[in-house]
C-alpha cells in the first residue's frame, strides 16, 4: 500500500492504483469493524471517506493529501502492531489524525493546497507520460498517438484546478489495459506457489552443504578409477543442480528492500527540502534472504547519504543549470556470483579537496601524504571511521558514522563497497554482495601441518618466496617482518607464529614461504603460510562459542579429503596481529586499480612470453599456472597433451617450446598455463609468465572497427591467444581412447 501511495503521488490519474488503495483501506475497515477494533475502524473509516471522494474525482491527489494518507497508513500500522504484540487495541487518541483527514476532505482547503502546487504539476504530468512511454515500448502505436496527451492534461489541470474529475486519457486506458493481462497470470502464480518455513529451508541448505562435501570426497576418492569417473561426474552435476535449486528457493527479489525506499526518499526529501525522483531498476534481481536482511541497513544509509550530501537544494541545482529535481537511481544487477547494487545520484558529488582538508583537519592523514595521494585514493577516505564532510550535523546524517558503517556491514557478509564520484555530476556507490553465505570459495593453506581455509573474498594475490630468497626479501624493522611488494612495504603476519602464540620473532628457518596478500577493512597485510593447496568451495560450519571466542576463526569446514579445516577470519587476524587500519597508499592503489577496472570495463590479461614474443591470455580464462617436468608432457601422434587432474588436455605449443626444451633432457621444466575454453581445458606452453595487466581494446583507424585478437597491454600491442583455435583431441581409437571419450563427454 505504501508503494501504491507514493506511486500514486506521481501518477494521480491512475484509477487502478487508487482502486487498489481504496480496497486495502476498505478491507481494513471491514475486518476491524467485524472484529470490534473500534479505534482502527474509526481511522480507517476517515481514510475511506477521503479516498472515496478522491475516487469519485471530487478531489485531486496532491502532496498534502498524499502526506495525509501516508500518516493514515502509519497510524493504521502502529495500531496493528500493538494488536499483534498485545493482542488488544492500545488506547490512544487519533482525533488529530482524523481531523487532518477530514480537513483534507474540505475542498476549500484543497484549493489553496492546489494553487501552491499548480506550478510544479505540469512537470510531474509530463514526466509521467514519458515514463509511461518508456515503460511500455511494446505498444508503440498507442504511445505514439498519445503523444499530445500530456499537453491536454496540463491544460486541464491548470484551467480547472477545482474538484473537476479527470477524464481518463486514452493513454491511461491503454496502460490499464496493458496492466490487466499481467495481473491475471500473477493470480494463478499464487496458486502454484507454497509457503515454506525458513527453518526447513535452512535445514535443506545444510543438508545440501553436506552433500557437497560428500561429493568432494567422492570425487577425490574416485579420481584414480576411470570406471567411477562417469558416475561421480554425474553425482557432481546432480549435486550442483540441487544446490542451485535450494539456493534459488532461498532467494528473494531485492524489491523487498527497494520497495521501502520510495517512502524513505519521499519523507527525507521533504524534511531536507530536496526535490528528488527515485528510479528503481532491476527489482527482480534475487539475493539470499539472510543477505537481503544484512544489506537493508547499509542501503538505507547510502540512500540517506545521497539525499543529504549528494543531491543539492532545488535553488542550488537551478543555479548550477541542472534540473531542479534530482534523480536517485537504485539499480540491482547480477554479475557472476555477485549482485551489484548501485545507489547513484546526480548531485553535487564529493569534493575531493574538501575531503582532503577534512582529513588533514582530523589528523587522519598528514599534509605531505595528502599531496601525494591521487583523487581516487582521497575518495576512499570517506570510509574511514569518524569521517564526515557535512558542514553541520543534521538528524539525517553528518555524524561521521556513515560510510564506514556501510562498508563494515557489507564486508561482514563478504561484500565490497566501491565509490565513484565526480564533482557537480554526482556520486555512485556500488555494493557488491555475494549471492550466498553458506558456501564460499576459499583457498586451502597449510601451516603447522594443518589445513586452514582462507576466504577468497579478501585475498588479493599470492606471492611465493623461495627458500633461498626468504632471507633477503623479508626484511625486519625492529622485529616486525615486512616484504617489499612492488616497491611498497607490506606488513607480514606469520600464521604459524600467530597460532603458536610464540613470543619470539626469530626469522623463520629457511624454507619456501607463501605470502597471501589480504585486503580487509582497509587493512592490507601478507599472511605467511607454509604451503598452498587447491582453492575449494567450502561449506561453512558454525563453531562452538568457545572456539569462536578465540577470535581468529570464523567457522570450520570439511575438506574433500575428509579433513577438517578451520576457516580463518582475515579481519580478526589483522586486528590480533596489530595491523592498523591504514590509509596505505598500496591499499588504495589496489582498490583504485580494481575500481577503474570496473568503471572502464577493462579486461585483464595474463602477459606471457612465448619464445621471445609477448602474448596475452584472458585472465578470466586462466585456471592455474603449472610448472612441471617435461616428462609429464605426452604425445598423441605429434600432438602434445597433458594428463591434468586425471583428464587429458591438449597443450598448445605455438612457440615450439616443447621441442626446444627436449634438447635439455627430461629434467627440464616447462610452464603450462591451464585455461578454460568453454567446457574443456586447454594448456598453453609458455617460456615465462610476465605480469597481469589490464588491456584496452584497439580500433582500426578510419573504420573504427574493433581489432580482434589483439589488445593494448602496457602500451604494447599484444596478441591474444585464441583458445578456441586449439583443435580438439582426436576422439577415435588409440591407447587413450577412453580418456578422449571422457574428454568429449565434457566438451
Amino acid at each position, binding site marked *: 500500500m505504501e508503494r501504491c501511495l507514493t506511486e500514486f503521488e506521481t501518477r494521480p490519474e491512475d484509477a487502478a492504483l487508487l482502486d487498489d488503495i481504496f480496497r486495502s483501506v476498505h478491507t481494513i475497515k471491514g475486518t476491524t469493524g467485524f472484529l470490534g477494533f473500534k479505534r482502527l475502524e474509526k481511522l480507517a473509516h476517515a481514510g475511506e471517506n477521503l479516498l472515496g471522494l478522491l475516487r469519485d474525482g471530487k478531489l485531486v491527489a496532491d502532496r498534502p493529501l498524499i502526506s495525509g494518507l501516508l500518516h493514515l497508513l502509519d497510524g493504521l500500522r502502529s495500531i496493528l502492531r500493538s494488536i499483534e504484540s498485545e493482542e488488544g487495541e492500545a488506547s490512544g487518541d487519533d482525533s488529530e489524525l482524523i481531523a487532518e483527514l477530514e480537513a483534507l476532505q474540505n475542498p476549500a482547503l484543497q484549493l489553496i493546497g492546489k494553487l501552491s502546487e499548480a506550478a510544479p504539476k505540469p512537470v510531474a504530468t509530463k514526466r509521467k507520460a514519458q515514463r509511461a512511454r518508456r515503460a511500455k515500448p511494446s505498444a508503440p502505436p498507442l504511445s505514439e498517438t498519445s503523444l499530445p496527451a500530456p499537453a491536454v492534461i496540463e491544460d486541464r489541470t491548470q484551467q480547472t484546478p477545482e474538484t473537476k474529475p479527470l477524464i481518463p486519457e486514452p493513454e491511461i486506458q491503454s496502460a490499464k489495459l496493458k496492466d490487466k493481462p499481467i495481473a491475471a497470470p500473477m493470480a494463478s502464480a499464487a496458486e502454484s506457489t507454497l509457503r515454506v518455513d525458513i527453518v526447513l529451508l535452512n535445514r535443506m541448505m*545444510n*543438508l545440501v*552443504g*553436506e552433500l557437497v562435501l560428500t561429493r568432494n570426497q567422492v570425487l577425490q576418492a574416485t579420481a584414480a578409477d576411470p570406471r567411477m569417473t562417469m558416475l561421480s561426474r554425474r553425482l557432481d552435476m546432480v549435486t550442483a543442480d540441487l544446490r542451485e535449486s535450494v539456493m534459488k528457493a532461498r532467494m528473494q527479489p531485492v524489491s523487498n528492500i527497494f520497495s521501502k525506499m520510495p517512502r524513505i526518499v519521499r519523507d527525507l526529501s521533504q524534511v531536507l527540502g530536496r526535490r528528488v525522483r527515485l528510479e528503481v531498476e532491476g527489482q527482480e534481481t534475487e539475493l539470499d534472504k539472510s543477505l537481503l536482511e544484512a544489506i537493508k541497513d547499509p542501503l538505507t544509509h547510502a540512500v540517506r547519504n545521497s539525499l543529504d550530501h549528494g543531491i543539492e537544494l532545488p535553488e542550488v541545482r537551478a543555479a548550477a543549470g541542472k534540473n531542479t529535481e534530482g534523480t536517485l537511481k537504485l539499480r540491482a544487477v547480477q554479475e557472476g556470483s555477485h549482485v551489484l547494487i548501485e545507489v547513484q545520484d546526480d548531485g553535487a558529488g564529493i569534493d575531493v579537496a574538501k575531503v582532503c582538508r577534512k582529513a588533514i583537519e582530523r589528523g587522519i592523514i598528514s599534509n605531505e601524504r595528502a599531496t601525494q595521494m591521487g583523487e581516487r585514493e582521497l575518495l576512499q577516505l570517506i570510509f574511514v571511521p569518524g569521517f564526515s564532510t557535512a558542514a553541520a550535523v543534521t538528524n539525517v546524517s553528518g555524524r561521521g558514522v556513515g560510510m564506514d558503517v556501510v562498508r563494515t556491514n557489507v564486508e561482514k557478509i563478504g561484500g565490497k563497497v566501491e565509490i565513484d564520484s565526480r564533482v557537480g555530476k554526482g556520486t555512485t556507490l556500488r555494493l557488491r554482495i555475494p549471492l550466498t553465505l553458506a558456501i564460499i570459495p576459499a583457498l586451502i593453506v597449510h601451516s*603447522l601441518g*594443518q589445513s586452514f581455509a582462507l576466504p577468497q573474498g579478501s585475498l588479493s594475490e599470492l606471492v611465493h618466496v623461495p627458500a633461498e630468497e626468504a632471507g633477503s626479501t623479508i626484511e625486519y624493522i625492529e622485529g616486525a617482518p615486512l616484504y617489499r611488494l612492488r616497491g611498497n612495504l607490506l606488513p607480514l603476519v606469520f600464521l604459524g607464529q600467530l*597460532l*603458536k*602464540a610464540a613470543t619470539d620473532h626469530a626469522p623463520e628457518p629457511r624454507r619456501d614461504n607463501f605470502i597471501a596478500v589480504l585486503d580487509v577493512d582497509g587493512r592490507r597485510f601478507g599472511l605467511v603460510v607454509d604451503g598452498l593447496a587447491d582453492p575449494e568451495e567450502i561449506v561453512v*560450519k*558454525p*563453531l*562452538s*562459542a*568457545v*572456539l569462536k*571466542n*578465540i577470535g*581468529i*576463526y570464523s*567457522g*570450520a*569446514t*570439511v575438506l574433500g579429503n*575428509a*579433513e*577438517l*579445516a*578451520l576457516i580463518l577470519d582475515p579481519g580478526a587476524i589483522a586486528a590480533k596481529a596489530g595491523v592498523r587500519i591504514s590509509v596505505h597508499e598500496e591499499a588504495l592503489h589496489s582498490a583504485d586499480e580494481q575500481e577503474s577496472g570496473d568503471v572502464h570495463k577493462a579486461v585483464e590479461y595474463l602477459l606471457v612470453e612465448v619464445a621471445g614474443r609477448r602474448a596475452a591470455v584472458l585472465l578470466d580464462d586462466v585456471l592455474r599456472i603449472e610448472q612441471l617436468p617435461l616428462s609429464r608432457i605426452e604425445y598423441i601422434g605429434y600432438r602434445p597433451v597433458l594428463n591434468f587432474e586425471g583428464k587429458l588436455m591438449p597443450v598448445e605449443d605455438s612457440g615450439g617450446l616443447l621441442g626446444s626444451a627436449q634438447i635439455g633432457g627430461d629434467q627440464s621444466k616447462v610452464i603450462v598455463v591451464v585455461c578454460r575454453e568453454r567446457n574443456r581445458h586447454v594448456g598453453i606452453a609458455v617460456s615465462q609468465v610476465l605480469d597481469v595487466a589490464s588491456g584496452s581494446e584497439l580500433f582500426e583507424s578510419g573504420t573504427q572497427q574493433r581489432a580482434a585478437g589483439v589488445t593494448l597491454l602496457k602500451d604494447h600491442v599484444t596478441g591474444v591467444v585464441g583458445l578456441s583455435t586449439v583443435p580438439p583431441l582426436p576422439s577415435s581409437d588409440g591407447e587413450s581412447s577412453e580418456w578422449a571419450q571422457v574428454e568429449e563427454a565434457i566438451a
Partner: protein
Amino acid sequence: MSTAAVLQKAEKASTLNEVCSVQVGQTWFGIPIPHILEIVGGARPQPVPLAPEFVGGLFHYRGDVLTTVSLRQLLGLPPKEGSQDMLVLECSGGCFGLLVDLVGEVLTVSSTDYEPNPSILDQRRKTLLAGAYKRKGKLLVMLDPDRLDPLRLSQHAASSC
C-alpha cells in the same frame, strides 16, 4: 504413567541408573546413559591452535563440527598419543564430544550407593565431578555432562584466572 506414580518413583529410596563407564588414566568415571548420543571409537580430532587447553579439537560428526573436550587435559594429565575414544554428549547447551582413554561397559548403579563429592576435593575438581557411586571394590566417579560443557568450562577458566 500417572503423575502420582512418577512422584512415587522419585521418592522411592533406591532407583537404578544406567551409567557408561569410561577410563582416563587410572580412574573409572561414569556418565549417565541418557546423555550419550553416540560412542565413536578411534577418533582423531583436528587440533585447534590457540584454543583453551581443555579443548581436544574439532570432530566432524554427522554434518556438524563438534568441539571436543579432553578429559585428560581437564584432569591435568599428560596428553595421550594416538587415537582416543569419544563420546558424543548432549547437554543443555548443545552437543559436544568428550575424549576419554577407553570406553568400558554399561553399569547399573543404585542411588543408595551414591555419595556426593568429598569435601577434601580441590575446588577445581569439585566443579567437574558430580559425586561417586560406591561399587564393589572400586569407586565410580560420576561426571555431569552439563558441567563439562565447553562453554561452561571456559567461563570457569576465565573466572578462576
